[in-house]
């Protein structure tokens, strides 16, 4: 190690860490590192809640309790109409940006003008699928990929998300299990979304719609 | 059963009536009560202030003075907790003393906990009539699990009506030297407690620790509030004409 390297911030910090730990560790670093590496991928879960009852119903209830609205469709083809209905009822216009995997649906037929791209500031509505959803907390799990850009669920005031029942899992641990199974590399952003953005920073009073979407509409597929 | 009554330094100086009430209670329950003359202080003020040497000296003295009794009982959760939990810790580096401390710890009790958990007392000699509310001391509640015991004892007195205090489990702001060293802050805390006591509208507020009681009483009087402030022992062992 050069003199420069041994005085580098990293070297100094690691030296201090090792020196202080030496006072209380009896096991050598190599052994401890092996043990730590095993822990990395152990998949051992901590205490989890039991979730009795229908997972899908539980998810939908939780979503509503977190201030999102919900809808249901019977067939995937019905999505554009369901979205048009929601937007119409709430006076949210007819323009939207959507994720690639929804591009093949008949949006025009439902009277909506959509573009399959990432959102810009001016886009009022973002429509996405989601990678999976968590029943315990009523949470959408979104994975950032080129075809599912994260701005769709971030910049527009309104976020509409399609959730397929087979993608509803009980807990975060189950979502992570799937993530590891389906992705060889960690996506750059994994976002767990549990409703409209909110803040309580003024007088501890909750306001919905801080920097992210002001409203979230979750549509359950079939 | 031979019980050593450790009255505590605060009771010794500020309110002997509590010591006598504790004695009456223990005797009425059939204990042979001894007041070891050499007792002074459990040493908590020193330990709390970081004066470990003084705390250790006092711990050793008390371990010696309190040997040979079946039980050691204190009318203070704070002091009892110090003997039970802190003595073994502050003497941990001297194995022989640590063992003695652990042994003493097993036979040391706060008063209401002793009366209910050990003696299973069902009848108390007191004859107080009136409405009361109860302040749960922090050390008693959070460190010794004392919550139901005083309430059970009060329930054994037909003339006593207990109204639960709002925020009864919140600290009263005494904290020993804290009350003098940070007087303004301590006053804010105890004032909140006194507001809830006033709202309860009872004849007397009770507690198991004289530190808390002096603090609460002092603030009540400064607020012009004449609610009686009593140690639970004084209620449970009220003599005629109280």
């Amino acid at each position, binding site marked *: 190690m050069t003199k420069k390297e041994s005085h580098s911030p990293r070297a100094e910090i690691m030296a201090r*860490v090792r020196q202080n730990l030496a006072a209380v*560790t009896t096991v050598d670093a190599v052994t401890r590192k092996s043990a730590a590496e095993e822990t990395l991928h152990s998949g051992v879960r901590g205490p989890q809640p039991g979730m009795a009852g229908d997972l899908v119903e539980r998810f939908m209830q939780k979503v509503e309790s977190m201030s999102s609205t919900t809808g249901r469709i019977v067939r995937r083809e019905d999505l554009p109409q369901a979205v048009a209905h929601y937007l119409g009822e709430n006076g949210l216009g007819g323009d939207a940006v959507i994720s690639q995997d929804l591009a093949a649906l008949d949006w025009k037929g439902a009277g909506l003008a959509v573009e399959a791209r990432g959102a810009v500031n001016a886009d009022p509505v973002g429509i996405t699928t989601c990678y999976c959803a968590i029943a315990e907390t009523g*949470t959408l799990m979104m994975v950032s990929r080129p075809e599912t850009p*994260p701005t769709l669920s*971030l910049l527009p005031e309104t976020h509409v998300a399609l959730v397929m029942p087979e993608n509803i899992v009980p807990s975060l641990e189950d979502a992570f299990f799937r993530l590891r199974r389906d992705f060889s590399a960690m996506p750059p952003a994994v976002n767990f979304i549990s409703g409209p953005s909110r803040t309580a920073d003024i007088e501890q009073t909750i306001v919905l719609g801080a920097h992210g*979407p002001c409203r979230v509409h979750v549509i359950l597929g079939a | 059963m031979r019980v050593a009554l450790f009255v505590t330094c605060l009771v010794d100086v*500020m309110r002997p009536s509590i010591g006598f009430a504790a004695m009456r209670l223990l005797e009425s329950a059939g204990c042979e009560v001894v007041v070891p003359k050499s007792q002074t202080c459990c040493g908590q003020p020193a330990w709390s*202030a970081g004066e470990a040497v003084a705390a250790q000296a006092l711990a050793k003295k008390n371990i010696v003075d309190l040997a040979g009794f079946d039980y050691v009982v204190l009318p203070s959760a704070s002091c009892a907790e110090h003997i039970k939990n802190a003595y073994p810790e502050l003497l941990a580096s001297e194995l022989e003393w640590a063992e003695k401390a652990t042994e003493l710890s097993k036979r040391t009790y706060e008063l209401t906990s002793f009366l209910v958990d050990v003696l299973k007392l069902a009848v108390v000699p007191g004859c107080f009539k009136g409405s009361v509310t109860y302040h749960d001391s922090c050390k008693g509640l959070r460190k010794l699990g004392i919550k139901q015991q005083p309430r059970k004892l009060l329930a054994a007195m037909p003339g006593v009506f207990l109204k639960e205090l709002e925020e009864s489990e919140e600290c009263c702001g005494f904290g020993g030297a804290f009350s003098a060293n940070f*007087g303004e802050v301590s006053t804010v805390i105890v004032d909140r407690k006194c507001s809830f006591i006033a709202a309860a509208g009872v004849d007397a507020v009770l507690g198991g620790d004289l530190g808390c009681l002096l603090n609460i009483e002092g603030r009540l009087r400064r607020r012009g509030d004449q609610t009686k402030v009593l140690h639970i022992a004084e209620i449970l062992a009220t003599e005629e004409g109280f």
Partner: protein
Amino acid sequence: MESQALFFRERAAEKACDPRVQKTLQHVRPLFVGKRKKGMQDLAELGMDFDKLQQSAQKIRDRVVKNLDVWLELFEAQAQATGAEVLWARDGAEVARLVVELAQENGVKKVVKSKSMLSEEADLNAALAAAGVESIETDLGEYIVQIAGEAPSHIIAPAVHKTKEEVADLFVQHHGLPRQNDITALAREARGVLRQHFLSADMGISGANFLVAETGSAVLVTNEGNGRMVTTLPRLHVVVAGIEKIIPNLEDLATLLRLLPRSATGQGISNYVSILTGRPPLEANASGVEGPQRMVFILVDNGRAGLLGTEFDSMLRCIRCGACMNHCPVYNSIGGHAYGWVYPGPMGSVLTPLYTSLKDAQDLPQATTGCNQCAAVCPVGIPLPELMRALRRRAVETGLRPWSERLAYKLWAWAATHPVFYRWGVRRAVRYLKWLAGGEEYIRVLGMAPGWTFGRDLKAPLGKSFQEMWADRKG
């Protein structure tokens, strides 16, 4: 941030006597306490036991703290393998230097920041401003205190000490827009103003609630969406995080996420949980791909390594939930600013002396009633009252306490171990106190303890000590 803890005693007294501060504190207190209580009830309804979760969380944190050398290497290796860069900073000044260098190297004119208490330790905004880089806080509470020129007063709710009128005043002053009077409108206005900054920023700086070694990721736990904005829109993302923030894997993250939001705000989960990971430059720079082109971690010591292997290492378990201060009778009586540094309440009373100076900050661990609420609610079981007492002991043993105080304890301890003299001293004390009352029932002014009689009377003893009366009775 330079510590003002030296002035804690005066500030605490000031705040205790300030009706405006008291009004805000009283308004806020039941909200925090009530929210956590509800959060714990929800936990119970899910069939979960707080104690078991707490033990699990404590184990997770201890596993890393006790083996931090190994976990730092594992985290760094994984982060680098994903394509992120890992830098190291020994102290706050080095953090600032590294960030300013990154900004200058990358032509950064504007930075947007999500909340990072560590960046407060490092005075990062000031350093960036000095280098001509605009740095804007985007968490609404942090934004408010930034434009007010103040420090945050709570680690979760930085502007908890401000009324909505004060916020409205600040916005009028800084935004030049018509005054808004209700909270929703104020939040909307901030949304509009800050959005422009999100869209035009070159660099995003975030902290990290956790660093996951398994995946080499930073985890952000937020409600507003500003964390997502800051880490998605600008082309460069810098994570500033303490070395103790590492957790082993994603299962551990799930366990800690059951405790953190519930302990802080009572929520079962915060609105946004974001797991951010680096990616190879080729992928990051590909056209049409969203997210930062470059991700840089700055791992910071600034006093943390010094706690390892000591009686204080449990403090490194802290997950910054704020429950301790929310339940502290002292914090709830004086608010956060009195504590004089980045961290208030019980955790601040431990960290400030350890990270800055015990000599200057020794009044913080003195200002406790020992009620133990903090330890009872801590999701990772940090024995805060014991740590504070250990600091008081250290102050005594390193000669920091006033000689008069030491002498008083020495005299008292000598007397207490010499019962005959003690009993004599007590008899004198009882008579003196009775005399002080001047025939009244209560003493109103106690010269030797004016802090007591500032707000309280003291009922005078009746004339004899217990030991005297007992001796009399026995005859």
